[in-house]
């Protein structure tokens, strides 16, 4: 199997989900042959290192894995991102709550900050499980740019490697001010027809976009959703109970305004609908 993720990292904690995350890391290592780097935020000493290595090795048992263990210090999200850059990670795995408390969300939790600011791909597990066989229900949010192309490429490889995976490409879009056109058209039929035409156009675009990456339409499903971008994908992922959402996300400096006047990916960061793979490079 081609090395989709050449080097992966995991921020290890002693939390209840910590062991499941180590097993998820092992699974990805097995599929893609990735090099693995564990990170831990805390002071490095013999006792801490021994405790961590024991936790990791016991969790991996009966499997074995060659890994590096990196102790880092400072504000956790910044330290993890800095180390991830130094290690030249292709993918960082983290655990995250589906929903943060409002205050934490607005101020930014460790997981959310990493998701927003990391320059490498981030796989966030809301429900890590120790013995996952594969992702069964994967949805890919489509954006028509380089990251979108990468997301489609990655989804194609995931579909190949995961086996029995249902893959759905989703495009959510809206036309601002479309409803106000009825003012002059005088008929909802006009806007309804326009919306249908836009919908078909968008579906056709999505087919072409995936087709250009060599995806055959018969192997996958397509869903076009009309409504606020980000919010529609979020609800669709919840509705079909996806276990992995692949989402292209530009690493862009965001502010509290982006969280107050939520848009696009911020809807998803507010409430993670499933495990989420953020495609950043």
């Amino acid at each position, binding site marked *: 199997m081609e090395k989709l993720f050449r080097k992966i990292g995991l921020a290890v904690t002693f939390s209840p989900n910590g062991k499941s995350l180590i097993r998820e890391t092992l699974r990805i290592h097995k599929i893609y042959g990735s090099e693995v780097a564990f990170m831990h935020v805390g002071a490095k000493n013999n006792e801490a290192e021994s405790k961590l290595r024991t936790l990791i090795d016991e969790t991996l048992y009966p499997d074995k894995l060659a890994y590096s263990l990196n102790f880092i210090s400072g504000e956790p999200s910044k330290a993890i991102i800095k180390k991830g850059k130094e290690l030249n990670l292709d993918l960082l795995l983290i655990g995250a709550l589906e929903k943060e408390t409002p205050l934490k969300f607005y101020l930014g939790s460790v997981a959310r900050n990493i998701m927003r600011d990391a320059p490498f791909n981030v796989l966030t597990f809301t429900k890590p499980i120790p013995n996952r066989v594969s992702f069964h229900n994967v949805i890919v949010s489509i954006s*028509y*740019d380089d990251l979108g*192309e990468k997301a489609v490429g990655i989804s194609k490889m995931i579909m190949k490697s995961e086996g029995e995976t249902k893959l759905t490409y989703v495009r959510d879009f809206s*036309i*601002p*001010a*479309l*409803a*106000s*056109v*009825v*003012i*002059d*058209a*005088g008929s*909802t039929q006009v*806007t309804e027809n*326009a*919306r249908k*035409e*836009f919908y*078909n*156009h*968008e579906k*056709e*675009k999505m087919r*072409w*976009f995936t*087709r*250009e990456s*060599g995806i*055959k339409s018969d192997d996958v499903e397509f869903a076009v959703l*009309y*409504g*606020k971008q980000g*919010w529609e994908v979020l609800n669709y992922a919840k509705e079909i109970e996806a276990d992995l959402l692949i989402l292209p996300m530009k690493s862009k400096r965001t502010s509290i*305004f*982006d969280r*107050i*006047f*939520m*848009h*696009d990916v911020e*809807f998803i960061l507010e409430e993670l609908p499933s495990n989420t793979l953020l495609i950043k490079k």
Partner: protein
Amino acid sequence: MNISHQEVTVFLLSISVLLFLARFLGEMFNKIKQPSIIGEIFAGILLGPTLLGNIFPEIHAYLFPKTGAVPIAMEGITTLAVVMLLIVSGLEVNLSLIVRQTKTAFFTSTFGMVIPFILGFVPCYYFPHFFGIAPDSERVLLFALFMGTALSISALPVIARTLMDMNLLKSEMGMIIIASAIVNDLFGWVIFSFILGMMGGKKDGIGFEQQLMWIFGFLVFMFLILRKVIDKALPFIQKTFSYPGSILNFIFILGFLAAALTEYVGIHAIFGAFIAGVIIGDSSHLREKTREIIHQFVTNIFAPLFFISIGLKVDFVANFDLPVVLIVLVLAFAGKVIGAGLGARLGGMNLMESLAIGFGMNSRGAMEIILGLLALQAGLIQESVFVALVIMALLTSMLSAPAMGYFLNLSKRKSRLQDILTHKNIFILDAESSGDVLSTLAAKAAKDTGLSQEFILQELLDREKLLPTGIANGLAIPHAKLKITFPVVLLAVLKKPVDFKASDNIPASVVVLIISPGDESELYLNLLAETVTKLGDPDRVEAIAACKTTEEAAHLIKSFTA
């Protein structure tokens, strides 16, 4: 004060006459692809002092008495209408679009607001007497501020309709114009409310700082607290109570309450109504259907009554002042076209596209008229200035689409299939194989792009290897992304169908070649998708394939892609 049977009769009769004529003329203007508001205002001019009042003064006086309960009731209805129009206007303000607007939209909205504001403010501040305001009057500053605001506002519904008619609503340009118009509206109404508040404040003895505090407090409460509450409440209301009645009630109750609150504290009612509309419209839970129902409800009954009432109040002939009309027109056109156009140019659009955006943003329509009437009622402007603003609003709305079309035609970088796939790009070909077709089309594309035929052909053949480009029903769309600056689309009607390895095994009789700039993925996809959705239907492919001449094919394709 009691209302008599006679007054009830006159009131209902006049409402019926107003609605009938407004609808009739509105529909007539719609038929000629012009905003219905123009017809509604004309209806007012016909029924008002300008025409009916002059020719049949008795009938005019009977239908629209100036004393008694009828004018009070009519005033109540127009106030209700304007508040409703502002709620509806607010619903279309997409806050997330403002937060994530692109560089081009940011420049377009900023320059499209600042330049018209300066062009409106400066002459009115330094030459107020020209507009009927004494230079030493304390109203000069407020009047100049108002004119700046009036010239910087845009009319979103008219703009949206124009863009939809031109097949541009979903395009990059359409999005830039809509996002910029939303920003202009938001700031325009906030500034205007503030001006009205300053006027009211002076009357009521409320200080400037106090006004500012009220506005700030109101905005913080509405945007940070009530917006979140509404977002949670909407799904509950939609699920628990009858739809759409309950949600319509909720929206109007909230809108009227906010309007009442702002009116009470000395800021104008429209401010509360508009902001209430904005925070309700921002909810992801507000269904598109609900928006449309509200639009229908307000714009079919209340908006016509409001717009027709304008003609009833003002004598357009007596108050027509040509120099004022001309100066307002010049300032309005120059401000928006230069401002928004310059912004678009700085944002990366080419000159012709920037001019098209400038004219697209120039539509003032209903918003300008509402603004003008409120200013007239508040004593901020003279009737002659109001008439000039109405004429400007109508002319800018009427000229927007033709001017945009003109400049888009001049632009080399076209994005709509209807503009790219013209007569000169359509051919009738006699070819033996797909290779022949690609080679011939590559030679023709080489002329347009300046690239070599061999290079284009190789790229097309490489793409064919990835997945065949035969679609279905006899249509094939070979395509490639190359280092060029504008897209090329060629269409060949094949005398003998040739195999393009389509999944339905039907050989292609119509081949559309698309070559697009390598760095414009979305344009490329748009052209591919538009070709399939507009030409891919089996009947359409068959009809094109049956064409014997390029003229015949071009005519048919034009009708399909328009």
